[in-house]
């Protein structure tokens, strides 16, 4: 049985099946971008083991097609086992073996990048200091205990949990959060402008004066959904008590201008929906943003950010210039000059944490060395044969 399994896993047939499935997946994913946008499609089709139907549901979900991670993983195993199966040590095949080893490194590197790389952004206005970057595509509900004089305790609930609905309980929270509604893309309006049929989105906070309506998802590459949710704060039932009195419902959205607070168990709690944050043990201060244009045009010639890097733990305090093709690499993260806001009022740095960023470089070197060796070997063999052919 193991022989047959090994034969199948290392077979060319499986390679063809995976490649054909990949073509179908890319085609279906491309079509799906019309409805979901590129980022959602990347997650649903390519950064998953399976493509599920329906995509989001608390109930039964059926895997309808292998996802990008599964196909990539199987291809990787297929390549490794085929390599193992057909491997034999001869100089004649050495270049081919090396080339395939390079492909394995490249495939594995791609998979690792997909699994472990984190991309975020840091927006800085001149003079502003931040010690966190933000994920513009993923939101979080931050529930903040403000009772301590020096430290805020933040419980960050990813938007994925809100999207699923239901009740959220966590050891750091003395209450439960019941997700009453989740709007993937929403429009908020003052109640008086929303029409006679509209009702308040929530009973407490600013949501009691706003109406919320669901709108079609943003699918353009540079657009994003304006997520919002209506959450209810309620005590955790204890003992025989089944229902406890709720504190009311709140509307949470990053479109709201100010955070909202409530009192519970003698403490002040703040709730806010915001871009997911990645805190760092160091901070960056934007000293100066430079945006040069080609003379007489609005075409960017160069844009650069001069930032002060301060890391109390490592006693780092230095100025760094970040510009095109000259990122700042620090503590496993890379800061690229990504963009700027209108009238150069803020710089936007892309922050990439990718533990396997060297894999493509290593893979290219190995593949290049393999191809070069194979060419030179055959070239030498050809020359030798040509020299040994007797003259007619």
């Amino acid at each position: 049985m193991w022989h047959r399994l090994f034969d199948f896993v290392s077979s060319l047939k499986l390679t063809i099946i995976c490649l054909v499935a990949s073509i179908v997946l890319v085609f279906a994913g491309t079509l799906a971008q019309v409805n979901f946008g590129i980022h959602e499609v990347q997650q649903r089709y390519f950064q998953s083991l399976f493509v599920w139907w329906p995509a989001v549901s608390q109930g039964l979900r059926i895997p309808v097609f292998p996802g990008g991670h599964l196909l990539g993983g199987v291809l990787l195993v297929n390549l490794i086992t085929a390599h193992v199966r057909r491997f034999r040590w001869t100089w004649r095949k050495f270049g081919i073996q090396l080339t395939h080893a390079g492909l394995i490194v490249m495939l594995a590197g791609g998979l690792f990048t997909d699994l472990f790389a984190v991309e975020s952004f840091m927006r800085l206005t001149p003079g502003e200091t931040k010690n966190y970057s933000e994920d513009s595509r993923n939101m979080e509900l931050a529930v903040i205990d403000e009772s301590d004089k020096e430290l805020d305790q933040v419980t960050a609930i990813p938007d994925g949990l809100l999207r699923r609905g239901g009740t959220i309980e966590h050891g750091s929270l003395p209450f439960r959060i019941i997700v009453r509604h989740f709007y993937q893309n929403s429009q908020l309006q003052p109640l008086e402008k929303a029409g006679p049929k509209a009702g308040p989105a929530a009973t407490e906070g600013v949501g009691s004066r706003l109406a919320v309506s669901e709108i079609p998802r943003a699918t353009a590459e540079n657009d994003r959904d304006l997520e919002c949710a209506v959450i209810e704060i309620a005590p955790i039932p204890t003992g025989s008590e089944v229902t406890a009195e709720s504190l009311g419902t709140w509307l949470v959205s990053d479109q709201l201008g100010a955070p909202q607070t409530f009192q519970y168990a003698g403490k002040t709690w703040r709730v806010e929906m915001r871009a997911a944050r990645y805190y760092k043990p160091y901070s960056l201060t934007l000293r100066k943003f430079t945006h040069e244009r080609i003379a007489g045009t609005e075409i960017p010639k160069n844009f650069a950010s001069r930032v002060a890097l301060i890391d109390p733990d490592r006693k780092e305090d230095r100025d760094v210039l970040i510009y095109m093709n000259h990122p700042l690499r620090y503590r496993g993260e890379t800061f690229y000059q990504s963009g700027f806001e209108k009238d150069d009022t803020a710089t936007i740095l892309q922050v990439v944490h990718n533990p396997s960023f060297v894999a493509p470089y290593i893979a290219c070197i190995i593949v290049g060395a393999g191809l070069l060796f194979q060419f030179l070997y055959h070239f030498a063999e050809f020359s030798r044969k040509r020299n040994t052919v007797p003259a007619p």
Partner: protein
Amino acid sequence: MRKNLYTTDARREHGIDFVRSHRTLFYSGLFLLCALFSGCKDKDEIKVYRVSKAEPESAAPGVSPAESPGTGGMPPMSAPVESGATAGQTSQLTGNPPSNWEVQPLSSMRQASYLVKGDNGAMADISLVTLAGAAGGVLDNINRWLTQLGQPAITAEQLAQMAQHVTSPLGDVTVVDLEGLPQGADAAKDGRIVGGIASSDAGTIFFKMRGNAALAEAQKEAFKQWIATVKLTEAPAGAAPAAPPAPAAPVAAAPPMADAEKPRIKWEVPEDWKTVAPTSMRYASFAVAGQNNETADISVSVFGGDGGGDLGNVNRWRSQIGLEAVGDAELKPLIVPVTCKDGEILTVDMTGPKAHILAGWARVDGQSWFFKLIAPDQLAVAEKAGFAKFLQSVQFHP
């Protein structure tokens, strides 16, 4: 042609033999791969962490790392400063700056901060910072300044040749004049550092002027004269934080951060209010010192839209001073309108067990402006008239 040693079956057997002989390795590899899939990060995991309420350590605008910690064994940024603008201190550094130096808001590091302007947009930033202990030594700090200007480090012998000395009440001050334009820097604002380092009982004192090379050269003598006047003096108990002295006349304040995107607004600040660097959430910040080291914190913030609504904000303020939330009906009697220069600001005056809040807000051009004073009750009462005058002086469309 080389003879193929293996038939198809033999190749297969070879491969299978290889697997058999390396079975543990093979299965371990597969297991590892599966574990990778199953154990990869859970994007929907709830995270709990603690963050400081204070802003992260920030570099003072235009200030160099030499004023703050860095390599070379300098103390951490939070090291206690014997003299400086920290609460409870008993001594302060004072000096006589030239009249053409503009006083700038102080940061957590700076005990004096000035800006001097020249022709064609040239400017130089002048600062005074004290750090405890040796703070890394003179040579290391001067080499750090050189690094900031993109210049190579120097040796102790080279330093001895280039250093000048100024005698001040603090003792001997080593003064250096360094030139160099770092990559990407603006020549109108950078290119030269004239710096002085002195060791005193208060710690290591850094005087620094960094800016346009020609302007720094022109201001060099004035800078040295200023250094010669700086001395350590006893601060009266409960006095407002140290140097530089606040301008005598009420200031028609421009926005504290030069930012073209920021809305234009003007106001007049009472004499006893001191401008402090705003945090990222604030448009402007002021402080007033009272008796017994009490301080009133005055903030101006601006948010898009209605900024959370009147009731939400008033109840948030009430919770900050230990008062119960109120409803819509109870809110209305609390609100008193105040007429400002081009509009109306709604105000509340609330005293709670924790503190006293005077607050005002106005909605202008789709934005909500919030003005808030929070202080111990006695100080807030004393500042109430000043706060009201401040609100009356606000002009949203100057």
